[in-house]
């Protein structure tokens, strides 16, 4: 792999997406401020705003860095540089994951820390919130994989629709699992049960599988423009 060019391409995507990243990060913190400003309704409104901010960041990045690059025909410019398809794929993954994971980690970390604190006393919801935050990262990976592998705006939008529709069902599914949701959510302390850890492990495996699928499909491509 050509690490010199990968760094250049990653720096390029960071440069083009720096304002987007900051905007969504600020949006996420505003949502959290609403969440913890007092009252159940504000908590719900803030949660919805936070989820919206994280999902919108994912959609924005995938469309902006992968789909638009092909649609706006800037891909031939990049591929005329000394890079291979693997270099391009690695650069896209590193750039996307870092631009996404920085605000995601800050927002997730801040949210989990606040929820875990004795002042708020909603530690019981930490596992399911964590699993949902990781699920949002998975949906981002699915959308990114759809964009990179299919090179199609249509398939990418379909992946977005499916992932975003699935969000509620995944939450309902997790909430129905004993040891993840249900009465556990109302407990003041953080309790990581075996069931919650098993789901988390499954999510991590799914992320690894999506990454593997991206590289497998990209390596098999014979036409890249």
């Amino acid at each position, binding site marked *: 792999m*050509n690490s010199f*060019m990968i760094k*250049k391409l990653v720096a*390029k995507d960071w440069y*083009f997406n720096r304002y987007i990243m900051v905007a969504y990060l600020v949006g996420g913190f505003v949502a959290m401020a609403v969440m913890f400003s007092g009252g159940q309704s504000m908590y719900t409104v803030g949660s919805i705003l936070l989820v919206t901010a994280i999902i919108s960041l994912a959609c924005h990045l995938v469309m902006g860095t992968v789909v638009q690059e092909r649609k*706006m*025909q*800037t891909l*031939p*410019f990049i*591929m*005329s*540089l*000394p*890079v*291979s398809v693997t*270099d391009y794929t690695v650069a896209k993954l590193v750039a996307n994951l870092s631009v996404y994971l920085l605000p995601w980690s800050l927002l997730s970390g801040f949210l989990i820390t606040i929820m875990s604190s004795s002042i708020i006393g909603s530690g019981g919801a930490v596992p399911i919130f964590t699993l949902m935050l990781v699920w949002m990262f998975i949906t981002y990976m699915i959308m990114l994989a759809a964009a990179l592998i299919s090179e199609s705006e249509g398939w990418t939008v379909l992946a977005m629709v499916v992932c975003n529709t699935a969000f509620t069902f995944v939450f309902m599914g997790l909430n129905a699992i004993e040891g993840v949701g249900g009465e556990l959510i109302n407990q003041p302390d953080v309790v990581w049960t075996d069931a919650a850890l098993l789901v988390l492990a499954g999510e991590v495996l799914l992320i690894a599988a999506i990454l593997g699928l991206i590289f497998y499909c990209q390596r098999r491509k*014979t*036409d*890249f*423009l």
Partner: protein
Amino acid sequence: MTAAILKGVEKHYPHFSLQGIDMSLPVGEIMGLIGPNGAGKSTTIRILMGLVHQDAGDVRVFGHTMPDEQVKAKTQIGYVSEDMRLYGHASLGWHMGFIASIYPGWDQRYAEELLRRFDLKSEQKIKGMSHGQRVKASLLLVLARAPRLLILDEPTTGLDPVARQEVLAALMDALRDEERTILFSSHNTQDVEQLSDSITFIDRGQVIASRDKESFLDSWRRIRLEVPDGIKLPVVAGVETVRASGHISVVTTSNYSDDNAKAYEAGGARVTAVEHMTLEEIFLSNVSASRGRELQ
């Protein structure tokens, strides 16, 4: 020494195939690749760039096997294509800095000279540029890094006459470096005729002719004949097409010598004119002969 070579290259799509492409591009040569839309020019160039993998055949650029060694090969290639765009929200200056940080051979003084010549402003964003300015900006970015091989896929398509002339003049300048090799694809034969040393015609996925430009222009002729009733034209070597209307026949030949005209005279026809052909006419005759029918 050869800059690029393609041997027996094939690429098959459901509705189009490149078949048995053989091309050799010696160092310092300017080759024009001419073909109608959909002939396979861009596919051939993308295979040469390693962006499309050939199904069969061997492709080498400066000795590097393509597509496996495309990274090494592309350090020495400057590529501009008609469907290539720069980042609209970034300025030309940002692009210049980006390219300069990648290619150690970037010549800032030459880049600034090209800025002036092309009447471009480095602080201008690409999205605010006209098509002609965008093409010139792309060309600036490749010329200022002094690549050993310049691959231009229809760069003059859609340009107004002034921008086209500016682009061609800059390319002529770039050709002063005798070590620089250029592959220039176009369906505009005038541009190719102006620049090229050698010409390759491609049609329906096949190379139908490939020779040096002067040889093409010297050997092709259009012979106008008056053919009296009852006289049948003799078979003459090199004849590509024959069109007859009443007593008038027009013969195109790819291997003209004075003997051709003498053979027709000896056969009873009267030669009324022997005309040189333009590259476009030669191209059309080649395509016509290749397809086995007359293009009107």
